C-alpha cells in the first residue's frame, strides 16, 4: 500500500525498496512470512550480497532508516515509480523515467485526467500515470496477454492503487478500447508493434473537446505508419522525438603532471651516469594533481524508442 501517498513508517504489506548501492536495490514486500514452493508458511528472509534480512524486523521502521543485514547494512526507502521501475519484475521490455517523464508532460497528465494505456506490460509506465492522475482521475490499461493483465491488476491492488485503475485483457488493435470509453479520454498512450492499427480507436476514445496522443515505437517504420494514420484522421501538432538520458560519472582523479624544463640544462648531480631512456624516466619529476572530474559511462543508452505525439483538435466529428 506504499504507492498511494508519502508515508513515514513501514507498515505490514508495504512494498519497500531495499537500497544497497547505486547498482543494487530490491523491491521487497514487508510481510513477516511467505509461502514457499512446497506450500509451507515460512519466515520471510531476504538474501542480498551483503547478507540476509529478516523482513519482519523492518515493519514499523521509519522510511529512510538504515537496517542491518547479516553482513552489512542497507537503507529502506518508500517506493516511487522511479525506484519501482528499477526494481520491478520484468514481464516485458519496459520504458524508463526519461521517456516516461516526456510522455506524462506531453500528454498533459495531471490529477483528474482520464488516460488510456495499451499495453500494460510490466506496469512501469502505469505507476507513473497513476501517481500523476490520482486521486481524481482514472487509468484504463489494456493488455492482450491475459496473465500479464491479471498480474498487473493484482499488483495495483496490493500497491493501494486499485481505485484509480481498470485493467482490461483485450486485443485493442482488433477490438478497440470498448465502447464505454468512446469520447472519455484526455490522453491515449500506445506501446504496440502496430500502433497504426490502434490509432482509429484512439481517435474514438478521445474527448470531443480534444486530447493528446502518444505512441512509443522502437523502430522508425512503426512511427512512419502511425503518423500516416494520425494525419489521415486529422490529428495535428504531430512530432517525433527521442529522449536519451546520460549520466555523469563524477570522481576525483589524480593525474600526472610532468616537468620537462629541467632537461634543457645539464644535470647538477652528474655523478649518476646517464644510462638508458628508462633510467631517465625514473628520475623525472612527476607530480600528481587532483581533479574533480566528470565523464560519461563507457556505455550509454543509444536508443530506447521514438516517441510520437499528436493533438486531436476539439470538435472533430467522429462518425
Amino acid at each position, binding site marked *: 500500500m506504499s504507492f*498511494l*501517498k*508519502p508515508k*513515514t513508517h513501514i507498515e505490514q504489506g508495504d512494498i519497500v525498496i531495499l*537500497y544497497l548501492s*547505486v547498482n543494487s536495490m530490491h523491491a521487497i514486500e514487508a510481510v513477516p512470512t511467505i509461502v514457499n514452493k512446497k506450500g509451507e508458511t515460512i519466515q520471510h528472509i531476504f538474501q542480498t550480497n551483503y547478507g540476509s534480512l529478516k523482513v519482519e524486523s523492518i515493519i514499523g521502521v*521509519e*522510511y*529512510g*532508516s538504515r537496517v542491518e543485514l547479516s553482513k552489512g547494512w542497507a*537503507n529502506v*526507502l518508500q517506493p*516511487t*515509480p522511479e*525506484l519501482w521501475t528499477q526494481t520491478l519484475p520484468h514481464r516485458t521490455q519496459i520504458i524508463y*523515467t*526519461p521517456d516516461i*517523464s*516526456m510522455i*506524462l*508532460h*506531453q500528454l*498533459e497528465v*495531471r*490529477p*483528474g*485526467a482520464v488516460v488510456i494505456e495499451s499495453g500494460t506490460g510490466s506496469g512501469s509506465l502505469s505507476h*507513473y500515470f497513476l*501517481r*500523476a492522475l*490520482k*486521486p*481524481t482521475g482514472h487509468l484504463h490499461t489494456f493488455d492482450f496477454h491475459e496473465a500479464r493483465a491479471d498480474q498487473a491488476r493484482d499488483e495495483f491492488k496490493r500497491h493501494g492503487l486499485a481505485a484509480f485503475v481498470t485493467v482490461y485483457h483485450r486485443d485493442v488493435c482488433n477490438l478497440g478500447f470498448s465502447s464505454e470509453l468512446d*469520447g472519455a479520454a*484526455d490522453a491515449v498512450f500506445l506501446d504496440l508493434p502496430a500502433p497504426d492499427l490502434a490509432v482509429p480507436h484512439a481517435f474514438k476514445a478521445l*474527448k470531443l*473537446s*480534444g*486530447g*493528446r496522443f502518444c505512441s512509443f515505437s522502437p523502430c*522508425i517504420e512503426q512511427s*512512419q505508419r502511425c*503518423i500516416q494514420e494520425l494525419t489521415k484522421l486529422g490529428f495535428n501538432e504531430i*512530432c*517525433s*522525438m*527521442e*529522449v*536519451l*538520458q*546520460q*549520466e*555523469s560519472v*563524477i570522481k576525483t582523479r589524480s593525474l600526472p603532471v610532468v616537468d620537462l624544463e629541467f632537461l634543457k640544462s645539464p644535470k647538477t648531480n652528474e655523478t649518476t651516469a646517464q644510462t638508458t631512456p628508462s633510467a631517465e624516466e625514473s628520475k623525472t619529476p612527476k607530480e600528481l594533481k587532483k581533479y574533480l572530474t*566528470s565523464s560519461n559511462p563507457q556505455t550509454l543508452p543509444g536508443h530506447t524508442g521514438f516517441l*510520437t505525439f499528436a493533438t486531436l*483538435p*476539439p*470538435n*472533430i466529428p467522429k462518425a
Partner: protein
Amino acid sequence: MSTDGTTPNIQLGDYIVIQRQKYTKLQKFGSLDTTSTLGKETLELKSLLDQPYGSTFKMCVKETKTGKRGAQRQHTLELCSDTELRSTREVLGISSSGADNRDICDNGEAQALKSSDIEQLREACNESSKIIEKLVENSKTFHTRTEYSQEKYLLKKEKKYFEYVQIRQPTIRLMVDIFYRQDAEKIMGIRVDTLSQIISYSGVCGFGSYLLYESGTNGLLPAAMMNSIGAGTEGTLVHMHPGNVPQKQALLALKLPLEQQKRCVSVNLYSVLREFYQGNVAPSIDQTEVEAEETLPETPNEEQPEAVEPSTKKPKLDEAPLSGNNKGLLRWQIENKRASALMHGKFDSLVVAAKEHPSSILQALLPLVRPSRPVVVFSTCKELLQETYMELKTSGKVTALHVTSNWLRTYQILPNRTHPEVNMSGNSGYLLTGFTLK
C-alpha cells in the same frame, strides 16, 4: 484539458496562447482594446471574447501603416470554421515537378514579380493561397524544381502569408515551448525534457507537501508543480524565491481555481528562513511603502509587464493555522508564517533550481525534508553540481545520487524524407537527484 469534456470560453483577464502555424505566443487578454503583435501584424483581440478555446480566427486587414521596417498591418479577427483551413498545396493542385535540380542556375532572377508587385498583391488579396498562387505562376523555376524543393518553397511562402490564428488555453506544455523559444534564459534554460524530469524525480502529485526554491523561471516551475498537485487535492507547495516578489506569469496563466492557488505559498528565501528560525519579527514600516516596492519584480520582464500585476494587487487568503492575530500583518508576513508552519511540518520533496551555488541552499533546506524523500537540484553549470554531489555523498544524508543530462532529438518523419532534425538544442542543463536518509 477539461474534466467534463467541454471547452471553456475565452474571458477577459485570461492569458491566451495565440498560434499562427508553428509560432506561439503567450498574451494577456486584459481588456477589449488589447492588441497583440506577431511580427508585422497587429491583431485586435476583442472578437475573441466568449468564443471557445481552440477556435481559429481569420486575420482581416483593417489598415496598413508604412513604418520604418516596411508595412505594419492592423487586423481584426473573424471566427472561422475549421473546413476553411485547407492545405495550400491542395488548393494550388501542384503536380509537375522536376526530378532533380541539375538544370537550375541560381542567378537570383527566378521570380518575375517585383517586391512592390507583391506588396500590392498582398493588400488586394485576403487569402494567402491566392498570393502564393500568383508567386508560383510568376516563378520561372518552380516547375523545374524537385518536389522536395517545391514543398520547401511553398512552406516558406505559406509561413509568410498565412492568415489564420488559433487561440488556445495555456498549459504547461505550451508555455515551456514558448518560454524556451523566446528566451531560454528567463526560465534558467530549463528545457522541456528537463522540466518533465524535475516533475517525475520530485514525485510531486496530489498528496503531500512540497518545497521549491527557484531563482526565477517566469513562474514556470511553481506552475508545473501546482499543475501536478492538481485541483481539489490535498497537496501543498512552498515556493521560495530570492527576489522581492515571486515571478508568477506561468502560474497566473494556468487560471487555477482559488482553492488550488491558495495551496501555493510564495515566500522570499531569506525572509522565511529568518521567520522560521527566529519567529515573529515585528513589522516596522507601513503597507504603502511595501506595495510600492513590491511592484518591482526581481527580474524585470519587459516583454510582458502584466505578468506581475495580479500577484501584487489581488488579495490572498491565508489558510495556515496561525496564532490568530494576523490583522495588521503585511501579506508577505502572513505568507511567511504559513510557510513557516509548513516548514515545521517538514516536506515530502525538495526541488532547487538555482542560479546560485546550490550547496548552501541545500544545507539550509535539506533539514526541512523528511527521510526517504526525493531531492532534485537543477543547474546549468555542471561544475556546481559536481561539487554538490561530492558534498552530499560525503555527508551521507542523501543516497542514490545521480547527475544526469539529456539529448533531445526531434525527427522529421515524412515519406522518403525521414531524418533527425538538422539542428538540436545543445543544453538540457543538469539534474542532481537523490533520496534523503534518516
